[in-house]
């Protein structure tokens, strides 16, 4: 018999509608799954079991009384610990915010509660979302449910791992330069970075504000679309929030790939450092799209190879400015000193980990007198050219495709001593982040070691519905079983 934690969000909703199961039973089953397996995975920094049970009971009570329930009623959800939750510790996996309880909820958190999604816990991440392996967490590294000796990717590695390990069918991540898409690839899940501004950033603890975007993880495209629909809302509290409502992605989901113009990004498929097995799996997926009736063409994003260098100037520059707020005054850690300046410097040295300090240093340098024009301003001009490349490609294509990441999941510790090698994980993810366009990662196969491989699908600004439609067509055609398996997989020994 299929356990409740193996079911999709859609199935869990249908079973509740048919009165076959209660929200409380669903939540209890997932909490039991977490208790049994999260000591191996380490996806959650905090399991909010009591609140989750109370919320589930309330949903069941309302259902029984004929009162309205939300669109995600009773569906467990894993929330990245970078979104402010009132009265619940919100740490960004940093010593700087250890024990910090925000006095307000992020808009996304309010919308999830309105939809009656049941938050089962807050998930691990690379500290302040800076990293691609979840090893930069100040607390512990999260492990990949497919192979516990390997990383789940990052920075949203905790949410990705929680969804892959069946701790919850839905997860919320954030993507600044691949932090949803890269872990989705490494954990065999679907991860969507919406158009910049599609989802409110109010209460998302700021990293690089011109790039940060919230998005869903799920084990299928329809579930990802369902969650996106619940969180994509204009928000007066975020001045960069898109005022135009999201076209309902679920309405077009099963239209199929016939007639779609799909551009294969040359610079990605011929990229340096691309694992031949990843390339092969992506090529096969592209061939399937052709068979499904899509018109597949080669396209070029000539400035995309300059995306990662530009990103590593823009991102640290914005981060160095945003993280100036951690000064030991208003919230978080304080290490006392004889003067305010001494207190601030000691607090920041003690509270930030190595990668956070590294980014603050790069950003402060890139913005400093004498270097600003050659670094930050030049990177912003390159960003314009990358955005124009996408615009030109979308003049003749509905969707662009390529690999999400150059490799499958790598062993823990493999890249922790080489920051640049770690950054290269996001070489294919970063261009869409710079352009602000939506993109997602869809599992399309496994390598010889059984580790998942993801295809990246990129759409024009506001093009989520078409993106999800193309991904759904491919997902149905491939029909992959995405249950982590193998000797090193979670639950393999029990």
């Amino acid at each position: 018999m299929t356990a409740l934690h193996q079911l999709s969000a859609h199935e869990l909703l249908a079973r509740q509608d048919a009165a076959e199961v209660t929200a409380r039973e669903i939540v209890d089953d997932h909490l039991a799954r977490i208790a049994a397996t999260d000591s191996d995975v380490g996806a959650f920094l905090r399991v909010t079991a009591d609140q989750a049970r109370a919320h589930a009971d309330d949903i069941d009570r309302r259902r029984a009384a004929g009162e309205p329930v939300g669109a995600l009623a009773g569906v467990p959800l894993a929330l990245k610990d970078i979104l402010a939750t009132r009265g619940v510790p919100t740490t960004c996996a940093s010593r700087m915010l250890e024990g910090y309880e925000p006095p307000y909820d992020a808009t996304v958190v309010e919308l999830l509660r309105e939809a009656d999604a049941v938050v089962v816990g807050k998930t691990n991440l690379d500290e302040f979302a800076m990293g691609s392996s979840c090893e930069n967490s100040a607390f512990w590294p999260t492990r990949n449910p497919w192979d516990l000796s390997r990383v789940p990717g990052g920075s949203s590695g905790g949410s990705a791992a929680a969804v892959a390990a069946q701790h919850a069918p839905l997860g919320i991540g954030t993507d600044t330069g691949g932090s949803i898409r890269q872990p989705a690839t490494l954990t065999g899940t679907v991860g969507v970075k919406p158009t910049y501004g599609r989802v409110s950033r109010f209460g998302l603890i700021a990293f690089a504000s011109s790039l940060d975007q919230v998005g869903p993880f799920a084990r299928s495209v329809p579930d990802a679309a369902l969650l996106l629909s619940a969180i994509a809302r204009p928000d007066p509290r975020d001045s960069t929030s898109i005022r135009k409502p999201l076209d309902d992605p679920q309405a077009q989901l099963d239209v199929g790939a016939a007639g779609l113009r799909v551009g294969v990004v040359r610079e990605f498929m011929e990229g340096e450092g691309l694992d031949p097995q990843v390339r092969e799996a992506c090529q096969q997926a592209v061939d399937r799209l052709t068979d499904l009736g899509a018109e597949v063409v080669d396209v070029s994003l000539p400035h995309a190879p300059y995306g990662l260098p530009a990103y590593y100037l823009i991102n640290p520059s914005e981060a160095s400015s945003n993280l100036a707020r951690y000064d030991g005054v208003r919230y978080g850690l304080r290490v006392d000193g004889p003067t305010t300046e001494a207190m601030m410097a000691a607090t920041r040295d003690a509270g930030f980990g190595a990668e956070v300090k590294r980014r603050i240093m790069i950003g402060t340098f890139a913005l400093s007198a004498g270097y600003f024009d050659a670094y930050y301003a030049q990177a912003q001009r390159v960003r314009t050219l990358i955005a124009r490349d996408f615009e030109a490609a979308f003049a003749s294509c509905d969707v662009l495709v390529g690999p999400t990441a150059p490799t499958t999941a790598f062993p823990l510790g493999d890249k922790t001593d080489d920051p640049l090698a770690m950054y290269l994980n996001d070489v294919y993810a970063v261009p869409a982040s710079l352009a602000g366009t939506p993109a997602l990662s869809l599992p399309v196969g496994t390598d010889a070691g059984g580790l998942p491989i993801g295809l990246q699908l990129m759409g024009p600004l506001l093009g989520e519905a078409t993106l999800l439609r193309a991904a759904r067509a491919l997902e149905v055609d491939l029909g992959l079983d995405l249950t982590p398996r193998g000797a090193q997989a979670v639950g393999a020994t029990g």
Partner: protein
Amino acid sequence: MALSEQQVRHVARLARLALSDEEVAAFRTQLAEILDYAEQVGEVATQDVPPMTHPARPANVLRDDEPVDGLAPDEALAPAPAAEDGRFRVPRIVGDESAAGPAPADDGAWTSTGEERP
């Protein structure tokens, strides 16, 4: 580009990071490597290309000028490491700095606003 120890300490100072000697040494190498990589942006011809500061098209976003509830002062102060009389409490900023002790890990002569003294 090569970075001197002095440059690294200067940047750390601007960023209010009291780095250890080991961190300064490690960052000299790592920042140079990362900046060497990032300097590839200099290869791109960008004459007449405007900088892109943001994917959202710049536009003023105004809300109706009506009062809305915000955080109550005690809620806003609750997460603070130290508060007193409805305000954030910090160590002495102005006054007799010699009595407060020297500023940390730098060559002095900076005010708390980060401006160099004449």
